[in-house]
C-alpha cells in the first residue's frame, strides 16, 4: 500500500496535476458557492473543460471540482441559509443559527476542519479498501455483474430523494435513452431514426449539462431572485479549545457514517449528511442543543458529506459501478477518455487510481487554504447580481457543449434536456436516477446477454451462484423496505409531504 501511495503522490505532485487539482477545487468552490447550484450541476457545467486533458489530469480536476463544490455549498448554507442541495440543508439547521448568533467564523471553521479530517480518513480507506474490493471483483462473472448492476440501479432509485416509483421511472427512462445507438452485440442500429449523430448514442455530456446545468439555470432564472441578500457578517475563522473538544467526536462519527454511506448504492453526500445529523441527535453528548446553533450540528454532517464524496470513488474505481449520480458523471468522464471503469483499472491504469487518491488528499489540504483565508472572496462572489451571474453561466454552458464537437445540434439537444429537466423536477421526478440508468443500462444489458449465453438460457444462474444470489437478495430487501415505508405512510395520520428537493 505504501509503494502504491508513493506512486500516487508522484503522479499527483507533478506541476500539471497540482495545478489541475487546485484549479478544480477553486472553480468548484466558486460555482458551488452560488446559491441553488450543487455539486452535480457544478460538475456538469465544468465537464467539457477537462476533455482536452490527459485522463489522469482530467479526473483529478473533476474530483477537485466535486469536493470544491461540496465545500462551497456549506459556505452558502452557513452564511445565507441558502442550501445548494440536500446535503447542505442539514448544515443550515445549526450553521445559519450559529452565524446569526455571531459565530459564523466558528461554523465555517468547524465545517472546513471537519471536512479535512473526514477527507483524510476517507482517503486512507480508499487506499485500503479499493484494491481489496477490486480483487474480489476480478472473480465476478457476468451473472454477478448483472446482479450487482441491478442492485446499484434499484438501490439508487429507492434510497435517493423523492418518490421511489418516480425514481424508478426516471431510471428506466435513462436506460431507454442509453439504448439509442449501435447495439454492442450485433452492431445493429437501435432507435437512431437514421440520424448519423446518434449512431454513437446520445452524448453523455450533452445530457448531463442539459439535465442538470441548463435546467438548473432555467429554474434560477424563472424564480424571483433570492440571491444577494442577507449575508451574515464574518467573525474570527478559528475554533476555541472548547469548540475543538466539542467537535472531535462528532467529526469522527460523521466520518465513519459518511464513509459507509458514500459506498452504498444511492448513498452519496446528501444521505450521509442527513444520517450523520440523525446519528448526532441520538448519541451526541450535546444532542439537546442540536437545532439551536450547536457546533456539533455543523461538524458532523459536513464531515460526513465530505467522507461520502470520497468513498463514492471506491465502488466506481474497484467495481466500475457508480453508486450515485455524481459518480455516474465520473464514469462518463472516464469513458470519454477511453477508460472502462472497473476492477481492471488498478492493473491497467495504476497511475490514474493512485494518482487520484493522492490528489484527493492534496486537494483537501488546498481546500483548507481556499476556504479559510479566502472566504472573503467567496462572500463577495455571493453579492454578484443575478442579472450578471446567470447569463454568464448560460454562455459558458453553451461554449462548453459546442466546443466538444463543433456541433450546434449538441447545443439544441442540451436545451431539450434542459427543458425536460426543468419539468421533471417541477412534476416531482428526480433527474439523478436518469443519469445513473443511462450509464448502467448498457452494462446491465451486456451482462444479461452474456449470462444467458453462459447458462444456455437458464434464468436460475442468477440465484444458483451464491454471490449473485446475495446481491439480488439485497436488492429485494431494498424494495421491500421501501414498500413497507410507503404502506406505513399511507395509513391515516401518517401522510407527510415535504418539499421536493433534488
Amino acid at each position, binding site marked *: 500500500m505504501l509503494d502504491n501511495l508513493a506512486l500516487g503522490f508522484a503522479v499527483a505532485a507533478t506541476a500539471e496535476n497540482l495545478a489541475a487539482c487546485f484549479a478544480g477545487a477553486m472553480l468548484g468552490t466558486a460555482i458551488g458557492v452560488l446559491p441553488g447550484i450543487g455539486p452535480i450541476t457544478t460538475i456538469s457545467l465544468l465537464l467539457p473543460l477537462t476533455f482536452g486533458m490527459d485522463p489522469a489530469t482530467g479526473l483529478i480536476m473533476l474530483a477537485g471540482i466535486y469536493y470544491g463544490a461540496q465545500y462551497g455549498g456549506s459556505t452558502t448554507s452557513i452564511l445565507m441559509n441558502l442550501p445548494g442541495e440536500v446535503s447542505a440543508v442539514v448544515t443550515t439547521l445549526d450553521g445559519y443559527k450559529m452565524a446569526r448568533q455571531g459565530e459564523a467564523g466558528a461554523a465555517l471553521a468547524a465545517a472546513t476542519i471537519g471536512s479535512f479530517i473526514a477527507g483524510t480518513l476517507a482517503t486512507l480507506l480508499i487506499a485500503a479498501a479499493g484494491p481489496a474490493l477490486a480483487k474480489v471483483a476480478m472473480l465476478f462473472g457476468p451473472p454477478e455483474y448483472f446482479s450487482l448492476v441491478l442492485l446499484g440501479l434499484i438501490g439508487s432509485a429507492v434510497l435517493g430523494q423523492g418518490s421511489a416509483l418516480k425514481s*424508478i421511472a426516471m431510471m428506466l427512462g435513462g436506460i431507454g435513452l442509453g439504448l439509442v445507438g449501435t447495439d454492442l452485440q450485433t452492431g445493429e442500429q437501435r432507435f437512431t431514426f437514421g440520424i448519423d449523430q446518434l449512431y454513437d448514442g446520445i452524448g453523455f455530456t450533452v445530457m448531463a449539462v442539459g439535465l442538470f446545468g441548463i435546467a438548473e439555470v432555467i429554474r434560477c432564472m424563472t424564480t424571483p431572485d433570492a440571491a444577494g441578500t442577507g449575508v451574515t457578517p464574518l467573525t474570527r475563522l478559528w475554533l476555541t479549545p472548547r469548540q475543538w473538544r466539542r467537535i472531535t467526536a462528532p467529526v469522527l462519527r460523521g466520518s465513519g457514517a459518511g464513509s459507509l454511506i458514500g459506498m452504498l448504492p444511492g448513498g452519496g453526500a446528501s444521505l450521509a449528511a442527513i444520517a450523520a445529523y440523525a446519528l448526532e441527535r441520538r448519541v451526541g453528548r450535546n444532542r439537546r442543543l442540536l437545532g439551536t446553533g450547536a457546533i456539533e450540528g455543523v461538524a458532523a454532517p459536513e464531515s460526513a458529506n465530505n467522507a461520502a464524496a470520497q468513498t463514492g470513488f471506491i465502488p466506481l474505481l474497484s467495481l466500475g459501478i457508480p453508486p450515485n449520480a455524481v459518480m455516474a458523471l465520473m464514469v462518463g468522464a472516464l469513458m470519454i477518455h477511453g477508460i472502462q471503469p472497473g476492477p481492471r483499472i488498478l492493473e491497467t491504469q495504476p497511475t490514474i487510481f493512485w494518482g487520484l487518491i493522492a490528489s484527493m488528499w492534496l486537494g483537501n489540504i488546498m481546500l483548507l487554504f481556499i476556504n479559510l483565508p479566502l472566504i472573503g472572496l467567496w462572500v463577495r462572489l455571493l453579492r454578484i447580481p443575478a*442579472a450578471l451571474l446567470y*447569463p454568464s453561466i448560460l454562455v459558458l454552458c*453553451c461554449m462548453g457543449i459546442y466546443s466538444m464537437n463543433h456541433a450546434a445540434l449538441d447545443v439544441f439537444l442540451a436545451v431539450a434536456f434542459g427543458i425536460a429537466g426543468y419539468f421533471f423536477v417541477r412534476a416531482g421526478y428526480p433527474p439523478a436516477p436518469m443519469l445513473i440508468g443511462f450509464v448502467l443500462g448498457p452494462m446491465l444489458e451486456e451482462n444479461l446477454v452474456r449470462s444467458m449465453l453462459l447458462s444456455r438460457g437458464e434464468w436460475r444462474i442468477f440465484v444458483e451462484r451464491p454471490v449473485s444470489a446475495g446481491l439480488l437478495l439485497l436488492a429485494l430487501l431494498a424494495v421491500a423496505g421501501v414498500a413497507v415505508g410507503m404502506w406505513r405512510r399511507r395509513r391515516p395520520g401518517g401522510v407527510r409531504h415535504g418539499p421536493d428537493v433534488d
Partner: protein
Amino acid sequence: MPRGFNGPQMIGGVLLVGLALGGLWLNQAHELGTFRRMGPGYFPMLVFLAMAVVGIAIAVADGWRRPAAVERTNWRRFAAAVAAPVAFGLLIEPLGLAVAIAATTALAALTTGKARPLRIIGLVVFLTALCWMVFVSALGIGIALFPALG
C-alpha cells in the same frame, strides 16, 4: 383529509405508458431472439415493459393523491431562458463568437427584471474575452470571433 380521484394528475403516468408503448412499437424493428441467444430487441422489450408497469402504478398512485402545490412558472422569463442558448446554437457558426455571446447574454438578461444596458454590454465584452481566452486560445478550439466578411 379529503381524498378523491383526480384525473389530470395521472398525466405523468399516462405519458410514461405512452412512451413505453411507443418504444415497444419501435422495437418491432429488432429481432427478439431467445433466452439463450438474446437478439438486439430483447433487452429493450424488457425495459419498455417495465416502464409500462411503472407508468400504470404511478398513474394509479397519483390519481388518488391530494393535488400538490405547484410553483407557477413565469412563462415570459422561461421563454427568454430557453431562447438564450438556442440563439447561441443558431448564431455561433454563421456569425461567430461575439455575436452569439451578445445575443445569448441579452436574451438571458431579459429574465431578470431590471436589466441595465451598459452593464450588459460590459458583460458581453467580458464574456467574449473570457471565452476566447479559455476555449480558443488555451484549449485551441477553432471558432471565429467575428463573422467572416466578404
